[in-house]
């Protein structure tokens, strides 16, 4: 039943982090065997590919790494790990040049041939590099070509299900997989493993990430006893498409630019409401708009499907159709007229700032295990700036590759066979039960998280949510999966997905309960103020001996303290012209 396989450097995931790690690892250690294992097809899954807006990078002309860094720290409400945030901003410059010059990406140009940059909300400079509104496709396609044309071993449709430590406790031995096409288990030993499975807050009723992302990485890390930080920090995008529960289109992003260009948000009574909440109206930041929409929905001011409307028609349908071609086409493909009519929208879970505690070189507390991209916590603090997500995954994926290339020396570690057997048993659990409807249970989880651990949170809500999560988790253990064939058995994977989501949902809810203030993406109605900046802390969660524990750790202001700046004296606050 169990196939065994060895490699030197093993990478989980083929998003921006995974693909960059593969290229850098191979360059850093040309004689090492590099293997990339992924839940879908290489380059065709994960969220880096779905990046629309673009990539934040300070390319000069008045912008600086310092300014990008200050925006990142302020955007993250002083919670980011400053060394990580600094490295993110500094290395983004190198990474974008690498993407253009070595990987072959082409970012949009100004008429004079220089790279075009625009501003996302929360930035003080026009610094987002992009390729139309399909930036992620350009980045991932080019990276994918480079990886596919090199001798990197590919394990496609291989789902990682367990981090298996060494027998002697010296670190990580390897990773247990299900080869999804055959349904067989495969254990791969490696000297260094990068976890870059991209998190993915898909435990919410409305969510943007791709279907393959279900928090598997963080769930594995949790079982391995690693520390997870900032787990309460789930970013909601204010305008997800609302098209009914039966369609996968629901939750997908209607881009930020629609509001920026002057789109109106209307409640169920077809009235604008954003000015009741913020003087910037629809142009307020993601968190504020998300909360305002949520508040309208709770006031029963909702559209027929329970959201609000976005309306662009007053800008001239032709103009809208031309400026937002992709979005308009996407809406019309599923029957909505974005250019001329109204489209129902709802806040949608977009990004998870929380993740494994790592050092700025992507190392974890477990020797041999490295984490990068959305799976790693720290770089964004309580809120990620639009455009910093893909910068983070590509920068730290590359860093991980360099570091692993150097550190993947010595011998392979022998696995702890007891844990290996236990992980196989865990994954095989549903085959011993009577099949049931997993989908309706996932809907129940998504409903619970959306209601009580979503855009706005309270102690009572979170406690109710946690109780519900325990019930759902227990119910899942009683639902089985048809064992007639394990090959490409999606329902088995639905079960495993839901298991990961339940485990991490609990951590999110517990961490949200532990943070008794409101920072960035985390909003407690019972603790609406942001708390003292000087004594800022972040949450750290782990599960050891079956007990989930959430603690606090003080933020270390290693570069700049609240109220101060690293910008030179006299630098203007912002260099973005108000629209």
């Amino acid at each position, binding site marked *: 039943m169990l196939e065994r396989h060895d490699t030197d450097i093993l990478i989980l995931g083929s998003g921006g982090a995974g693909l960059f790690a593969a290229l850098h690892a191979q360059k850093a250690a040309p004689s090492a065997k590099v293997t990339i294992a992924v839940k879908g097809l290489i380059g*065709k899954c994960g969220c880096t590919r779905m990046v629309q807006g673009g990539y934040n990078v300070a390319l000069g002309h008045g912008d600086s790494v310092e300014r990008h860094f200050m925006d990142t720290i302020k955007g993250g409400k002083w919670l980011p790990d400053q060394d990580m945030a600094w490295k993110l901003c500094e290395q983004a410059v190198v990474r974008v*040049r690498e993407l*253009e*010059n070595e990987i072959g990406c082409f970012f949009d140009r100004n*008429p004079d041939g220089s790279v075009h940059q625009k501003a996302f909300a929360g930035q003080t400079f026009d610094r987002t590099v992009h390729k139309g509104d399909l930036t992620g*496709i350009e980045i991932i396609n080019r990276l994918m070509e480079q990886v596919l044309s090199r001798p990197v071993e590919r394990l496609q449709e291989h789902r990682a299900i367990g981090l298996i430590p060494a027998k002697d406790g010296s670190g990580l031995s390897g990773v247990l997989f299900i080869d999804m096409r055959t349904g067989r288990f495969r254990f791969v030993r490696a000297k260094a493993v990068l976890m870059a499975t991209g998190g993915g807050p898909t435990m919410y009723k409305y969510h943007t990430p791709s279907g393959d992302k279900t928090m598997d990485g963080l769930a594995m890390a949790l079982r391995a006893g690693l520390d997870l930080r900032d787990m309460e920090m789930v970013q909601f995008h204010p305008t997800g498409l609302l098209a009914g529960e*039966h369609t996968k289109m629901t939750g997908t992003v209607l881009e930020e630019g629609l509001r920026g260009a002057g789109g109106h948000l209307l409640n169920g009574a077809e009235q604008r409401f954003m000015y009741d909440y913020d003087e910037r109206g629809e142009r307020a930041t993601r968190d504020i708009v998300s909360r305002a929409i949520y508040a309208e929905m709770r006031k029963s001011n909702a559209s027929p499907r329970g959201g609000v409307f976005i309306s662009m028609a007053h800008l001239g349908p032709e103009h809208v159709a031309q400026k937002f071609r992709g979005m308009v086409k996407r809406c019309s493909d599923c029957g909505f007229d974005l250019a001329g009519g109204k489209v129902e929208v709802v806040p949608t879970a977009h990004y998870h700032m929380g993740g494994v505690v790592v050092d700025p070189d992507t190392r974890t507390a477990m020797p041999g295990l490295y984490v990068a991209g959305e799976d790693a916590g720290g770089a964004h603090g309580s809120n990620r700036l639009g455009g910093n997500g893909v910068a983070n995954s590509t920068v730290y994926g590359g860093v991980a590759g360099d570091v692993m290339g150097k550190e993947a020396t010595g011998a392979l570690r022998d696995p702890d066979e007891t844990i290996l057997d236990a992980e196989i048993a865990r994954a095989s659990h549903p085959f011993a039960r009577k*099949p049931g409807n997993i989908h309706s249970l996932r809907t129940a989880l998504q409903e619970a998280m959306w209601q009580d651990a979503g855009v706005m949170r309270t102690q009572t809500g979170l406690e109710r949510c946690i109780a519900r999560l325990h019930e759902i988790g227990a119910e899942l253990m009683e639902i089985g999966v048809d064992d007639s064939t394990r090959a490409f058995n999606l329902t088995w994977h639905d079960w495993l997905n839901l298991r990961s989501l339940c485990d991490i949902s609990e951590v999110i809810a517990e961490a949200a309960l532990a943070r008794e203030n409101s920072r960035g993406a985390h909003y407690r109605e019972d603790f609406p103020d942001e708390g003292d900046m000087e004594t800022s802390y972040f949450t750290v969660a782990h599960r050891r001996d079956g007990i989930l524990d959430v603690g606090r750790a003080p933020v270390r202001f290693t570069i700049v303290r609240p109220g101060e700046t690293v910008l030179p004296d006299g630098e203007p606050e912002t260099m973005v012209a108000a629209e």
Partner: protein
Amino acid sequence: MTDLPPDTAPLRVSVWRGAKAGAFETFDVPMQESQTVLDLVAWIQQNADPTLAYRYACRVGMCGSCAMMVNGVPRWTCRTHVSKVMRGGTVQVAPLRNLPVIKDLAVDMDPFFDKWTEAGGAFFPTKSRADAVEPILPETPARQEADAAIECINCAVCYAACDVVSANPDYLGPAALNRAWSLVNDVKDGALDARLTAVSGAGGCHNCHSQQGCVAHCPNELNPTASIAGLKRATVRAALRGKS
């Protein structure tokens, strides 16, 4: 804007089951107002037959992993509204043509990507990360050609639509050649001659008969036929210069 009344007749969806050998199986799926072909397939797996295999990721037309034959035509299923393809209350869904079937609706896309590489689909750098980003005028003809071909999501819809792919196992196919053409026009790329050789082999661009199924079906409105024609011209020019 509400969901349809429950008395609406269900859709009859026939779905391919098995691998190369197999048969269609029919399911009744409740009809909804906003429903894509991918939603139909997912509904069947979640509610009617848990063993049905298919593939998707992004669900919004970006990853190109959900393509299938819908009523005999290759399509991205996550962006195909049921009303667009439904006939007399029925829809037929089969795995993508021209690729080996793994199971049910999931195909092995490796041959498609192997050919992408074989066609010289990977950029060859002439500069490094130590250099500044090269200024490139967006309005130059070469850049416009490169851009026109660039927004491919490698969904293999065109690959499934092309009869030369079915007839000639070496044929690199529209998507790979389209990518090669984009690179031929990329002034940053340093492997022009090698790429022109790569697209001139037994399965190269000269085997395209301009059937234009690729153009007719590409969900992103790309024009691989025009790209392939570009390669034909470029390779002929190179051959006349004695460089092939």
